[in-house]
């Protein structure tokens, strides 16, 4: 195991860098927001959510068994439930349940 002092330094570095990234744009544009940045602020949200979906699925192996089938089925369940009921909590819990069932009992 790594020495506790070194671990504490690493945790501080990770926390500090994360905080810095979150504050940087607010510090850089504290006086007024350029129109271009304001435009990005409007159109980025849906694009980022799309990026996060892919980010979560980045390690899925589509060339080896189970070929990403559990992710595909559970993901489809989330989309269909959300389109049907418009209830995020329900979609998330049901989709996760489907996924756990698939990876534990089927594949």
């Amino acid at each position, binding site marked *: 195991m790594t020495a506790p002092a*070194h671990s504490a330094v690493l945790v501080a570095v990770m926390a500090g860098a994360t905080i810095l990234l979150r504050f940087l744009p607010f510090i850089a544009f504290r006086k007024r927001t350029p129109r271009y*940045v304001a435009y990005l602020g409007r159109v980025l949200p849906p694009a980022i959510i799309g990026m996060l979906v892919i980010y979560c699925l980045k390690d899925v192996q589509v060339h080896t068994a189970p070929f990403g089938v559990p992710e595909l089925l559970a993901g489809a369940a989330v989309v269909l439930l959300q389109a049907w009921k418009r209830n995020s909590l329900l979609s998330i819990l049901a989709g996760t349940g489907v*996924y756990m069932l698939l990876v534990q009992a089927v594949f």
Partner: protein
Amino acid sequence: MGKRTVKEAFLSSVPVMAGYIVLGMGFGILAHNAGYGLPWAFAMSLLMYAGSMQYVGIGLLTGGASVLNTLLTTIMVNARHLFYSISMIDRYRDAGKYKPYMIFALTDETYSLLCDGKAPEGTEPHRYRFLVSLFNHFYWICGSVLGSLLGSVLPFSTEGIEFSMTALFIASFTEQWLSSKQHIPAAVGLLGTLGCLLVFGPGKFLIPAMLVITLALSLLRGKLDAGKEAES
């Protein structure tokens, strides 16, 4: 009005509650199994409060990574937070005393709850956003502590539970798609990132994806900016 704001903030945070307790527990269990017990899990969830980076962080800790490597990895994994902050600059501008904490606590999930910009009727918007941020942070810490304590004694297999984060984003994406007339930004984000993943591989695609998305949305500004004005 105060009570109403608390109630609405709590109700908004409920979809994240399950995910954060589950994922927080996942983190607590992972940390516990790697030899980092309760104080570590608690401190990381309190101070870093960045889900995927905490998972990655356990790997860095157990591997005894260097300070420089840890710094670079954190910047790579968390650079997307620059995006969240950029799109919240105007919304958080007048948040006053709540502002520093709200910026600190702007995670993927909190962002996905607050990025549509609407605070419920009859609430004080800044207080509402502050409370949503705070509730989510609280769930995350609770999950981490629970996972750390229960780590080795859970009576059932939690394999696959990490999918709740994926499910949260898929649900947000679907909801956003259904409630918006403008689908180009969402498609750019999804397809641009997928393209970068295929080209650059799972280790290095995030930064190129952010550049591609920013570039594509900048080039489409003439079209999208006009469309947005007309819509609102």
